[in-house]
């Protein structure tokens, strides 16, 4: 199904290239139709062919190796960011579920935190990190990117988990009460397992959000080695080599898919014993 829709998108792309105006079009006085020339919209096969060609003249390594290396670099940062974000999100959700006051006081700030433009925040985090010296620990630059990934990732996790933790069936809570179970026991034996179906969508969002966070951080702080940096570099060469930038863009998209795929696997493992009808 996924392959089919991918083919369909490629088809639409090529179709528009065939019929679309070469220099963009105006519709009711607005210049909204994208230009369909090879410069702005390279052929799908050109993009694919570009993968096996070397990155630049005089080098032997085909570009897909470079892009994959970049993607691998970004992937590791995203995983770190995702993990940090998930931990923070879970912690906040537990706090908010435990103390109603915390929820009232904290949740608005969490929402506000997500409206801060990441681009503005990225250099700040880097400079804070640069000033940080804890003993022998030196703040590496890549950690700033991971932190920004975590900054985007923690929010969906926190909100989804809070929702899950607070929608435990009252009858089950009563049962735990009748066992004189502590809050902690109820949390780990009942609330968390019961929250899993609610948490999965949050984790999926967090997985892709952490990739976006890391890529944007790479873009705005100039961190080298990742796919974000490649996108910027290749975009500058777009006039001469329009297909090149797409190789990196697709790699970034693939990264998001892989991250989501990990969450889906996690979901399958956790939910393997549950009734199939459970709404996800």
């Amino acid at each position, binding site marked *: 199904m996924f392959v089919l829709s991918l083919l369909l998108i490629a088809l639409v792309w090529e179709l528009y290239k065939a019929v679309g105006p070469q220099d963009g079009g105006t519709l009711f006085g607005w210049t909204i139709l994208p230009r369909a020339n090879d410069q702005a919209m390279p052929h799908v096969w050109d993009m694919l062919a570009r993968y096996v060609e070397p990155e630049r003249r005089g080098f032997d390594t085909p570009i897909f190796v470079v892009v994959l290396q970049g993607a691998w670099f970004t992937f590791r940062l995203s995983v770190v960011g995702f993990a940090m974000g998930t931990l923070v999100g879970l912690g906040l959700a537990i706090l908010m579920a435990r103390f109603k006051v915390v929820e009232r006081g904290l949740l608005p700030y969490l929402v506000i935190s997500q409206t801060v433009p990441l681009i503005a925040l990225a250099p700040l985090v880097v400079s804070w990190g640069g000033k940080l010296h804890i003993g022998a620990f030196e703040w590496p630059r890549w950690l700033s990117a991971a932190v920004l990934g975590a900054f985007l990732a923690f929010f969906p996790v926190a909100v989804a988990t809070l929702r899950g933790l607070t929608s435990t*069936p009252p*009858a*089950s809570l*009563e*049962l735990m*009460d*009748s*066992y*004189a*179970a502590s809050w902690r*026991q109820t949390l780990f*034996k*009942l609330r968390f*397992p*019961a929250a*899993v179906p609610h948490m999965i969508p949050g984790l999926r969002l967090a997985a892709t959000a952490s990739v976006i966070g890391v890529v944007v951080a790479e873009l705005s702080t100039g961190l080298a080695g990742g796919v974000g940096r490649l996108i910027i570099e290749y975009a500058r060469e777009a006039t001469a080599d329009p297909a090149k930038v797409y190789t990196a863009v697709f790699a970034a998209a693939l990264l998001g898919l892989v991250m989501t795929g990990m969450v889906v696997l996690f979901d399958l493992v956790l939910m393997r*014993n*549950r*009734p199939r009808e*459970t709404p996800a």
Partner: protein
Amino acid sequence: MTAAVEVRGVSKTFNVGRSDAVDALVDVDLSIEPGEFVSLIGPSGCGKSTALRLIANLLEPTAGEVLVNGKPARQARLDQDYGMAFQQAGLFDWRSVAQNIELPLELKGWDKARRRARALEVLDLVNLPEFANHLPWQLSGGMQQRVAIARALAVHPPLLLMDEPFGALDEMTRERMQDELLRICGETSTTVVFVTHSIPEAVYLSSRVVVMSPRPGRIRSTVDVHLGSRRGIDTREATAFFEKVTEVREALRGIGAADPVGAEEVGVEVVDR
């Protein structure tokens, strides 16, 4: 001998001090001896579920005191002196049948081997020995309810509190479960407090039926039932059984509200609070 349950002058008001305050129970006295099977019956809103939750210490009384096994209800809850079963089996989806039964034992800190052994023991007791590793949703409603009863019995409680445990089951399953319950109680000499909507169920199971009336909830009368310890299909068709059913029905009718029983018997209703 200490009473299994001692309820003295208990009242329960919800939303105390607010305009929507409700007197769920007023001035209730009830004493239950060990080994007794007592049913609480009455129309919706008579406070029978509230009474059960007060005994379980899931609610605190507004006035009066509740003793279980001679201790304050709270202490009895902390000591796990009772097991509880609700209308919904309430099994945890993510745990196997045996793991569900082990839950209260886990919370008490039993080690794994001992837990498993006890779970298999109670599964035997409820006639589901081969289902230990099944998942709850693979079982029928009646089987799930048996697992819930097994879970309630896991800690060897001297007292079993049941809130319409068979309310969601069909009539045939229901009668079979009633016989099972009687057998289990006979084997384990457990005291039972049983909340129900069904007159025949109350009469069939109980040594004593407590009839309650609503608004405000209070005990109206008590009907002693002596159908003997060996009850079965013959009991359900015996004259003595029908006489007791009639007696309880009339006690309920005396409550005054327009025949609450007919409607109640049909069935599945959300737990009243």
